[in-house]
């Protein structure tokens, strides 16, 4: 039911913004100042509002029940922390996200940081596990191996 809307939730920023929008929409259930539909059209991003309207029409369930179900689905999303050496453009980001959908599954959001010192590649942290695939680490590893190899050669010569 929420699959179309969830395709828009790719980053932790997307997730936080959507939760704020849901909170604003939920207030209409208790306050008489504005209707659900008017808040949806004025205070929610258009593509999100369109997806919500479409899913509400096709599901046939009430607004309140829909939003509660959506919040539960959002809580199921896992966060992948990704540190890159540069700030990717939309096209590159879309490629990275698609890779995660293809290889890990759709129930993830990316939390992206930028650290130019990495030079390239990425550091990845997910569910308490960590992998450093940065270029700086690879260069340092190569340098360390070279140094050890030189030291071993010196010992052999002595």
């Amino acid at each position, binding site marked *: 039911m929420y699959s179309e809307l969830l395709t828009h939730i790719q980053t932790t920023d997307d997730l936080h913004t959507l939760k704020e929008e849901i909170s604003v929409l939920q207030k209409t259930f208790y306050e008489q100042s504005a209707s659900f539909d008017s808040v949806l059209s004025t205070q929610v991003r258009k593509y999100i509002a369109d997806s919500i309207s479409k899913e509400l029409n096709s599901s046939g369930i009430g607004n309140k029940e829909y939003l509660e179900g959506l919040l539960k689905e959002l809580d199921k999303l896992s966060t*992948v922390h990704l540190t*890159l*050496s*540069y700030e*990717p*453009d939309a096209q*590159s980001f879309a*490629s*990275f996200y698609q*890779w*995660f959908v293809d*290889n*890990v599954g759709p129930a993830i959001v990316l939390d992206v940081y930028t650290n*130019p010192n990495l*030079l*390239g*590649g*990425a*550091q*990845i*942290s*997910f569910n308490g*596990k*960590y*992998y450093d*695939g*940065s*270029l*700086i680490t690879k*260069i340092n590893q190569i*340098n360390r191996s*070279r*140094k050890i190899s*030189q030291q071993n050669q010196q010992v052999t010569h002595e």
Partner: protein
Amino acid sequence: MVLAMLGVVLFFVGIGYQKLARRNHELYEELTRINQDIKNQHEKIILDAQAKAQQILADASKRSQTLVEASDIFAQEYKTEFRARLMQVLAKEESEFQAIYESVKTKSNEVTLNITKSIEDTLANEMKQMRDVMMTQMQKGLEEYKKSAYAKLEEEVATVVDLITKNVLKKSLNKDEHKRLVIEALEEAKDHNVL
């Protein structure tokens, strides 16, 4: 840094040579003093022995003559003959003493020469050992300095290469290469069961 290390090595080499020269001078003075002591003792022993021997002979002669003069038992001709015999005995004793004295003197000179040679050999040996130790230490120091200088140089070259590599990479990677590297890192993370 490298020049400073070389300076330190040369400083210690200089100190080593100064030490060696000072020790050489000390040993030479010691040898001269020992030679002089031996010579003095040798002369004193010879002179003492000569004096004592002459004293003994003089005493013996005097006592014999006194005994002969005092005795009434011997007739005059016996006394004269006895005195002549006594003089012969004394002359013979003196001659034998002179021979022994010459022999002792010769032996003593030989011993002195041997002792001097032995001391000279010992000192020469000690000097050689000191020089060998100095040379070994110097060679070891230079070897260590060389090794350390090369290591330092290699480290500095590696650091420069590393910096250049990183700077070049930082500037030269384009968008597609960055994207490829990120996807590679994600694949590796998957292979390591992180994803």
